[in-house]
């Protein structure tokens, strides 16, 4: 542990959601890296088998198995404080079902037979909600798993779950309600209730990834309202991803660009054809000013929610391991981890 407080001390299960295309998996991975410092051990779980995590970390597809995929940043100054470890797990409902049968009934063999008969298809895709319970169940199991030899007493200091998109996350997390329509009693119900005990506790926070555009912001606001209406679910932070760069202050952006003076400056910088260039650049600047104004409006809507807001820049070159570490450092600096 470090002396520094973060916004989410006490949270052990970080659920990350966001509209499609906002970079949810990237942010989940960066958050896992950010949490993995000072010898801490973090598990990053991918809930929907797209193998996005393996791709981000430039690894072959992940099996249904917890594997170490990265080392978090160490604090180099004292040399004694090593980085932490990031483990990853790609959950698929089938694997989770077999795991569940093994864990609770010691029936993996039967599970395999059931797979052949289409039972797994039935139980995971068909029996509605069961698949979500199995996935959240695996995440909560990893969160609670004990490891007496570790300093915290737990196997993992934190678990980050790359969850389904915002439109489906309410249903995904509201596990007990989801199965209650179907199973009023019985083992699935008991399991769902125990999963809900972790998810609806201060140990769990649901973070929203968003870009500063209308539709993602609206979905985020709707998603937060939905989560709040469920009760017991803790809304976490809002991570603004791919934020436009700040190149000028608001006042500077609002000022009408003086193209003659700009042309002069361009000539001074050694460029040619500067009259035309200045006009084109002034147009681009005006377009950017409009973009920033819209983004500011969206940001204000997100800030009105009253949750901590973090901001990550657009990485133009694309996301690789170096970029992930940079984003993780941003999240750490801003107090998210």
């Amino acid at each position, binding site marked *: 542990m470090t002396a520094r407080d973060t916004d989410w001390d006490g949270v052990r299960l970080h659920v990350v959601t966001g509209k499609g*295309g906002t970079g949810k998996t990237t942010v989940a991975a960066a958050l896992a890296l950010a949490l993995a410092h000072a010898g801490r051990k973090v598990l990053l779980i991918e809930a929907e088998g797209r193998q996005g995590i393996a791709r981000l970390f430039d690894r072959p597809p992940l099996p249904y198995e917890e594997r170490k995929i990265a080392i978090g940043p160490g604090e180099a100054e004292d040399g004694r404080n090593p980085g932490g470890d990031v483990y990853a797990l790609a959950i698929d409902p089938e694997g989770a079902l077999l795991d569940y049968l093994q864990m609770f009934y010691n029936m993996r063999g039967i599970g395999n037979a059931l797979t052949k008969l289409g039972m797994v298809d039935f139980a995971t895709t068909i029996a509605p909600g069961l698949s979500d319970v199995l996935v959240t169940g695996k995440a909560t199991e990893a969160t609670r798993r004990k490891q007496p030899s570790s300093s915290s007493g737990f196997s993992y200091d934190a678990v980050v779950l790359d969850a389904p998109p915002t439109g489906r996350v309410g249903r995904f997390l509201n596990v007990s309600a989801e199965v209650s329509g179907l*199973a009023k009693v019985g083992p699935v119900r008991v399991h769902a209730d125990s999963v809900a005990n972790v998810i609806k506790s201060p140990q769990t926070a649901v973070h929203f990834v968003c870009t500063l555009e209308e539709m993602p912001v609206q979905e985020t606001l709707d998603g937060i309202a939905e989560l709040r209406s469920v009760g017991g679910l803790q809304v976490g932070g809002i991570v603004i991803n791919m934020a436009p760069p700040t190149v000028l202050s608001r006042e500077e952006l609002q000022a009408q660009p003086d193209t003659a003076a700009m042309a002069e400056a361009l000539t001074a910088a050694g460029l040619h054809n500067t009259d035309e260039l200045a006009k084109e650049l002034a147009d681009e600047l005006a377009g950017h000013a409009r973009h920033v104004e819209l983004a500011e409006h969206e940001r204000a809507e997100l800030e009105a929610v009253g949750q901590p807001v973090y901001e990550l820049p657009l990485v133009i070159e694309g996301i690789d391991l170096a970029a992930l570490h940079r984003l993780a450092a941003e999240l750490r600096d801003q107090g998210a981890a």
Partner: protein
Amino acid sequence: MTNPQLDIDRIIDDRRTRIVVCCGSGGVGKTTTAAALGLRAAERGRQVCVLTVDPARRLAQSMGLTSLDNTPRLVDGVDDEAGGSLHAMMLDMKRTFDEIVEAHADPARAAQILANPFYQSLSSSFAGTQEYMAMEKLGQLRRSDEWDLIVVDTPPSRSALDFLDAPERLGRFLDGRLIRLLTSPVKAGRPFGRMLNAGFSMMTGAMTKVLGAQVLRDAQTFVTAFDTMFGGFRERADATYKLLQAPGTSFLVVATPEPAALREASYFVERLAEERMPLAGLLLNRVHSAGSCQLSAARSQAAAETLETMILNERVASASSADYSVAAQTATAAALRLHASRMNLGERERRVAGSFMSAHPAVPVVEVPALPEDVHDLAGLRRVGESFAVQG
């Protein structure tokens, strides 16, 4: 870009085109694309119905849709000079499922099915129901022959391919071996043989353990009541699948110039080829075009640095930072930096799109520029539609 240009106007103007399916991964702008395409086709003289699934609220409002009511509504404000019209509807998947049940079972049995808890879960949250019902609705609209062009926006699936697989999966389930076994309780002396019998009761035992006896009972009651409809379900799924392979159908794959979106697009293109489904092409959405200024990123960056150094030196020399020329220089340096990142972004997008195109050199492509704002009204949709047109 060496791929052929995708001519969307040619597709929507061709009277033989009866269905356009917009598919792609989440967040790439499928719904807006479908709506803009529908509007453009209507204003070019087609009788169009846009079938959307879960549109953003304001987009729905722009077409006058206020609720999921499963009824195509005439969209006001469409230019009908060319003799076309636009209807739009939002899919209500539970309602669609209920209607199929009501159409295929006598009233008493229908009521029994609709009241079953297992059916209620299945019809409102089975992972493939939305896709299945979208296909079902598409089939209904097509058969009604009231529209000469139907534009479908596919559901926000985990993967774009779910749209093709889900009907098959639901059909397989409703028709499946397992569910049949469930409905015929194991009796001693059945031709299964003792071995299988033992294995089977062990399995039902396991299922009872996992799901609970009540879930299994509900499933059995549901399946018994639903039994007569199974064949019908399979047939319907097959018929709709055939409709998608028919010559009047065109698949439009939508993607943004991002690796993940284009990877999905790739899978989809390959899958369509396997299924012999007609691919119209790729609509590459939200492309950041270079604009008129062609100054390279490197030169722009270098000039910005030169200016910034000059500003710094002037500040040291004169200490009058509010100076007129300093303000212009600051703005110019900022504009140059912005321009450089814009050129870099464009370069990256071209690289990402380029790898898709070299893998699929025959797929026609159209690029649609990124818009600063979301679409809220018909005028906005019209502008999006105009950007589909082949640029002279």
